[in-house]
């Protein structure tokens, strides 16, 4: 089975995000970059699929040349080869999906496993858009995945509970947090990753125009939350909710 998985280089989610004074972007000085944490679940699942079914795991990233670091991390975890579609452009999810669609057409994987969203912009769109561009079935927010006889059975996190969906492969699965426990890239894995193939191409090579359809006007920090307050009685709670918070 050929499994394609994707990784995005994102700013370290554990660091405090600071917005530039003029609101045109976030401050990137001294910021550390990491693999998007949802992608770690996707990569882990891809490796588990390979362990159970044999085959090959191909890991793809679309982004700046520094994203080779995140691809190498996936290779160190156990993926077999990498593809970087290199661009310094500001990408929206649609551009990423169109680039990935061309990679999928070239690679013809049996299944595509992605993170459900990226923890930097939290847009939660690339997987769904990729499915639309390819005309493939999709199962998002997966907490479990079984593959047999050309079908994937996917347990999904949905509002208010879970649901199970079966999709015919090739198809797209996006990973949620309960799907697995991503492994660490072991030190021998890191050393092996150095010698695994990593192919670089550009959106132009794939014939994709990545000009963004989404225009960012301004970044703004959310309003600071007020400290909580403990009220003495239910009556007081109702009175505060009605007259101060105007919530009821």
């Amino acid at each position: 089975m050929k499994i394609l998985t994707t990784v995005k280089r994102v700013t370290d989610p554990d660091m405090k995000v600071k917005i530039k004074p003029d609101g045109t972007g976030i401050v990137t000085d001294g910021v550390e970059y990491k693999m998007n944490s949802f992608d770690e679940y996707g990569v882990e699942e891809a490796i588990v699929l390979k362990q159970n079914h044999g085959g090959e795991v191909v890991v793809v990233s679309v982004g700046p040349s520094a994203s080779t670091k995140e691809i190498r991390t996936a290779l160190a975890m156990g993926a077999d080869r990498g593809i970087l579609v290199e661009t310094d452009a500001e990408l929206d999810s649609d551009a990423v999906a169109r680039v990935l669609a061309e990679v999928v057409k070239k690679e013809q994987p049996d299944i595509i496993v992605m993170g459900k969203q990226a923890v930097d912009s939290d847009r939660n769109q690339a997987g769904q858009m990729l499915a639309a561009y390819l005309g493939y079935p999709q199962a998002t927010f997966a907490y479990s995945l079984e593959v047999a006889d050309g079908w994937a059975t996917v347990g999904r996190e949905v509002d208010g509970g879970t649901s199970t969906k079966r999709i015919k492969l090739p198809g797209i699965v996006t990973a949620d947090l309960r799907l697995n426990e991503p492994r660490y890239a072991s030190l021998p894995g890191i050393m092996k990753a150095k010698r695994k193939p990593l192919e670089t191409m550009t959106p132009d090579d794939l014939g994709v125009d990545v000009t963004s359809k989404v225009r960012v006007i301004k970044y703004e920090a959310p309003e600071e939350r007020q400290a909580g307050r403990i009220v003495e009685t239910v009556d007081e709670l109702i009175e505060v909710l009605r007259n101060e918070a105007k919530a009821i």
Partner: protein
Amino acid sequence: MADIFNPTPEHKALREMVRAFAEKEVGPQAEAHDKHETFNIELFRKLGELGLLGVTVPLAYDGSGMDATAACIIHEELSAQDPGFCLAYLAHSMLFVNNLAVNGTEEQKKRLLPKVCSGELIGGMCMSEPNAGTDVLGMGTLATKDGDDYLLTGEKMWITNGAISDSDLGDVFLVYAKHEDRDGRGLSLFLVEKGMEGFSLGQKLKGKLGMRASTTAELVFENVRVPAANLVGTEGGAVKSMMRNLAIERLTLAAMSLGIARRSVEVMNQYAQDRKSFGQPLNRFGQIQKYIAESYAEYMAGRCYVYNTANELALDAMGGRMDSDGVKLYCSTMGKNVADRAIQVLGGYGYVAEYNVERLWRDAKLLEIGGGTIEAHQKNMTRDLAALERLP
């Protein structure tokens, strides 16, 4: 992307992996093991799964084939979360595993390295004795030749990983001993394994100030019969291998101080922004600024010295001696001072376990003593410096 702290992409990837692992799995267990003075052997074995226990061991013996810089990265990152746990790692991976990988015979390496790289066996190194520490050549443990074997008699003190619990001995040790019929400078190195007759746990030491998540033990040798196959290197020729291993030991001990310093700077820097006094964050006060800024500068100075030395150190070569003493001399006291300032910046909150800096401060003190006292470093360095007319 190359910088002296992460000279290759593999070093960078290693640092990221160890940091993520340490934050998630090492940090949360630190306080409990400090409190109860226990060694977390399950967590230790996970280091084996990650390929960290044999970081400097060639691939052919199931190691990871990396260098002194990689060893520093691992020590710095583990120590930022739990110096006590990291000390157990150091005693195993540097004092036993690396020592055997550099100095052992082919048979010894084939037989033991895979098992210590996986963590199946826990190792340590025995140099110090109840009556000989800094004056290491004054040791009293004797090796007497008996046919093809040696008989070992004596006591070793302060042995990290000497015990894995209150009553259980560690598994394998490299033990330095003297020969009666040789002059005082001839030492030999022996592999002593749990189960050899006459080899026992004297006591697991209790009540240490810091480094309480690592065990420290007194080990007793009563006519322990050690086969010639367990002699490491040549008879009487162990001073060289001892010096060679001391270099990586001191370097990685200095890297542990870096981890302590970095964590302490992070803690005081954050706290001084969050905590208000007289209507202002603490970091608006000049005295607090002095603590924070000087700590950072000293930490970075130490960090540059450590990685500069590590990047130059070949594991199998002699030399680099002055700077392996120098990095530990500087960083051990630096780490202790920085942890001390962190406590001061936090005031009462620094004095209790919640913010970790009181534990880091207690752990930091050991680094001025273990692996050579700061006075020993001063002595060695001044002797070596006296031979130099000019500095490069």
